[in-house]
């Protein structure tokens, strides 16, 4: 039986997400009717980044007819996040039933297969439980979420769309949003129109803007660069993982776009926005 042993902490950021993706790659060999096992019993920490990657892979496996068994984290705090993020329910039922779980500082996993204005509602509602979100900050947050999900719909060809989760960190007034798909990746999408595209060039182009696969008539190559502009303006962090490349933006630093040794199946967009005082 294919199995993935996640016996390390899954923090926010590049190294954790790549390590997780690498472990979960063991499950790629599972076929319809197979069982597979994800063992998180020794996992000491879970982040929105990790949960979104796990979530979309579980959905993708279930979509392919694979039976997914999971040993959830044992440590209390990690177990609690496992439940509140919707992972437990996703593993058990194969769907994200966010309305049941919606409480606290977590916006639980939501699956999106079609882009709609309401895609950002849950994240905004979650932040509003803690602070009075200004009209500008609400708009920034909504645009970031909606741009990424629209991109998934237009370009990713992901059979399960994407999953999104978010976590509000009350102490620092920041929100971490993670949106991950299991599609063809930005490089493969852009290659159709720009054959010289490599994984690194693809991320350089989408962060800069004005490059689009033009998968649909509404595409102008602005979505990701709009998110980058907002994250930059609010002094946040951003990470994009797609295929064999990663793009990382830290506050007050230029983009670091590099080829990665480990390939990421699909595209993950993770960003932090400061929305509180």
């Amino acid at each position, binding site marked *: 039986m294919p199995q993935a042993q996640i016996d390390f902490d899954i923090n926010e950021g590049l190294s954790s997400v790549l390590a997780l993706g690498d472990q979960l790659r063991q499950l790629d060999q599972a076929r319809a009717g197979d069982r597979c096992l994800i063992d998180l019993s020794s996992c000491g920490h879970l982040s929105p980044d990790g949960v979104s990657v796990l979530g979309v892979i579980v959905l993708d496996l279930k979509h392919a007819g694979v039976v997914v068994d999971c040993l959830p984290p044992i440590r209390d705090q990690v177990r609690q996040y496992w439940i509140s993020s919707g992972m437990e329910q996703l593993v058990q039922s194969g769907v994200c039933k966010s309305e049941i779980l919606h409480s606290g500082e977590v916006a639980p996993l939501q699956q999106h297969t079609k*882009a709609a204005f*309401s895609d950002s509602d849950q994240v905004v509602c979650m932040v509003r439980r803690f602070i009075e979100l200004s009209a500008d900050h609400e*708009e920034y947050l909504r*645009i970031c979420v909606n741009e990424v999900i629209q991109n998934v719909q237009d370009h990713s060809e992901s059979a399960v769309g994407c999953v999104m989760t978010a976590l509000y960190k009350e102490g620092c007034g920041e929100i971490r949003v993670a949106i991950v798909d299991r599609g063809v990746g930005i490089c493969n999408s852009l290659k159709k129109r720009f054959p010289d595209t490599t994984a690194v060039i693809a991320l350089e182009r989408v962060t800069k803007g*004005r490059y689009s696969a033009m998968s649909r*008539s*509404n595409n*102008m190559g*602005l*979505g990701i660069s709009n998110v980058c502009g907002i994250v930059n303006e609010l002094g946040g962090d951003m990470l994009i993982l797609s295929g064999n490349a990663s793009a990382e933006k830290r506050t007050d630093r230029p983009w670091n776009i590099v080829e990665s040794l480990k390939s990421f199946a699909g595209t993950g967009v993770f960003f932090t926005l400061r929305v509180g005082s």
Partner: protein
Amino acid sequence: MDHLDAEGSVIRSGRLLADAVLKHVSIDRVVVVSFSGLKGAASSYFNVFLRRIQEVCGLAVFDSVIQLEFGTSIQKQIFDRSWNAMQDGLRNSPLD
């Protein structure tokens, strides 16, 4: 009057708005479009809206027959980027 798709689709809403504007537009009348109250409009919404207007009457007359009102400065920024990209004609030539 709102021109939003019943299911909230960003793309269909952009098209609906454009079609509503086109129904009222004429050379001697300015149509006022207000985006205030519309939350989280991503670039695709404005792209669809502008492309539809462009297809029917071109963007050259846009400023003289359509007046836009924005709810927030970031909303206007997102629109402006779509407008500029449209003007630059991304479809025919890769930029940079």
